C-alpha cells in the first residue's frame, strides 16, 4: 500500500480520468468454477459471447478446421475477468461449455 499514490497525487473527487483503465484490474479472483470450451462441440452460434455479463468471451477470427468443418471464428475465454458465473454454460445449446472446478 505504501507504493500507491498519495492523496495529493490523485485526481480530486475520485474521478478516473483514463477510460477503460478497469481492464488492468484482474477481477477473476473469486471464481470457483471455470468454463472450458470444447471446440469440437461448438457450432459458433455466438450465444455465449452475447450472454456473458462481463464480456469475457473473446471472438477470434481466422480459419479453423474442426471435425471436417471449416469455421471463420473461434471462441476463447478471458480468464483474467471471467467470474465463473456459468451463464455461458447454461445458455450453450450444444453443451460445449463445461464448468470445471478451479484447482484449490
Amino acid at each position, binding site marked *: *500500500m505504501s507504493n*500507491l*499514490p*498519495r*492523496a*495529493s497525487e*490523485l*485526481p*480530486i*473527487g*475520485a*474521478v*478516473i*480520468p483514463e*477510460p477503460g483503465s478497469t481492464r488492468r484490474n484482474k477481477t477473476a479472483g473469486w471464481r470457483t468454477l471455470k468454463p472450458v470450451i470444447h471446440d469440437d462441440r461448438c457450432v459458433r452460434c455466438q450465444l455465449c459471447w452475447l450472454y456473458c455479463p462481463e464480456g469475457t468471451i473473446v471472438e477470434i477470427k481466422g480459419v479453423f478446421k474442426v471435425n471436417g468443418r471449416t469455421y471463420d471464428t473461434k471462441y476463447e475465454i478471458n480468464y483474467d475477468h471471467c467470474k465463473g458465473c456459468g451463464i455461458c454454460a447454461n445458455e450453450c445449446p450444444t453443451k460445449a461449455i463445461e464448468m470445471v472446478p478451479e484447482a484449490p
Partner: protein
Amino acid sequence: MCERMPHQGYRDGAGGSMMQKTKLVEALTGNYAAAYAVKASDVDVIAVYPITPQTTIVEKLSEFVANGELNAELIHVESEHSALSAVVGASAAGARVFTATSSQGLELAHENLHIASGIRLPIVMAVPARALSAPISIHNDYGDVMNARDTGWIIYIVASAQEVYDTIIQAYRVAETANLPAMVAYDGFLVSHTVEPVELNDEEEVRKFLPRPQRPYTLNPKRPVTMGPLASPDWYYEFKYQQATALREAYKLVKDVDALYGEKFGRSYGVVETYRMEDADYAVVTYGGAAYGNAKAAADMARERGIAAGVVRVRLYRPFPTMDLLKALEGVKAFAVLDRAIMFGSPAEGPLYKDVATAMFMHGVDKPAVSVIHGIGQRTMYVEDMYKIYTMLKERPNKEVVFMGVRP
C-alpha cells in the same frame, strides 16, 4: 419597480474606477435577494421542488427564466432528493447550477450532500432554515442546517437580505475555486420573507467577478472520465482526506473572496462579524439574522445599564473560523453561545457551543461559557431574554446549558 439613483458619493474615494457607478436598490425579501443573486451569477441549470419557506426563491427564478431574463434550464423534479441529484449531474457536466431547499427537503436530499462534496462539485444551494418534524413546524430554527454541517459543504449562515445577495455571489466564486459545494443558509421567514432594501450589483460586473474557471474534470463524451466510482479500502481514505484538506484550505479562500468582493462592490462581512466587542467583558456568540439583531439590541441595552456587552456572529460555519473566533473572544471574561438548534444527547446541546468549546480547548483557552438554546421552532427571542444572558454572565459565570424561552 427598479429605482435607479445617481452615485451619491457614499463610496467616494473607496475604490476608484473599479467601483460600479450607479446604485440600484430594490425592496426584496431574503428569498428574492437569493433569486436576484442567482440571476446575476448567470446560472445555467436550476432544479426546483417547492418547500416552505424556500419556495419563493425558485418561484422568482421561474419568473426570470420565463421572461427570458435568465438563460437557464429550469428542471421541475419530483422531490428534493431529485433536485440535488439533478444539479449534481448538471454540475458534473460543467454547468453552473443552483438549487434551494429547507427542513425535510434538506433531510431527504441528505445523501446527495455527501455525493456532491465527494465528487467535488461547485454547487451552490440556498437554505432558508426551518425546524424539523415531528411535530411539524414550518417556522425557523437551524435544526436542518446543523444536520448538514458535517457533509463537506462550505456553509455560510447569513443575517440579512443584502447579505444573502452578496453571499450567493461570493459562494459561486469560492465553490468554483475550491471545487467544493457551498450552502448559504439564513433564517426561514425572519430573513427569507422579510422585505429589506437590497443594493444590487451591475450584472456585467458580477459576471466579471465570476469567470468560469476551467474545471478539472467534467462529463464530456470527447474526454470520457468516470465519476463516483467504487473505492476499495486502499483508496477511499485518500479521497476523504483530500476533502478534509480542501475544506480547511477554503477558510482563507472565503476570506479572500469576501475582501475582493468588498473592493469591487463595496460590501464585505468577514467570516466572523463583531458588534461592540472592542472593550466587551461579556459576549453573546450566535448566527443568523434574528438572533444577531436582537443580541445587538440587547448589547446596547446592557451597555446603557453599565455592562460592557458585545456580540459575535459566526458567518462562516464550515470550515469553522477558529482563529477569527478566538481572536474575537480574546478579551471577554465570560460568554454565551446562543444556538437555535438542539443536538440531542450531546454533552452540551448547542451545536455552535460545541464547536466553540472544541476550538478553545484545542488552543488552551478556558473561560466560563454558557450554552443557551433559544428560538426553537421560531419561539420568539425577546431582546429582554438576550439582556438576561448578559446579566447571567456577569452575576454567575458558569459552564452550563440553559434552555431559554421554554415552559419547562
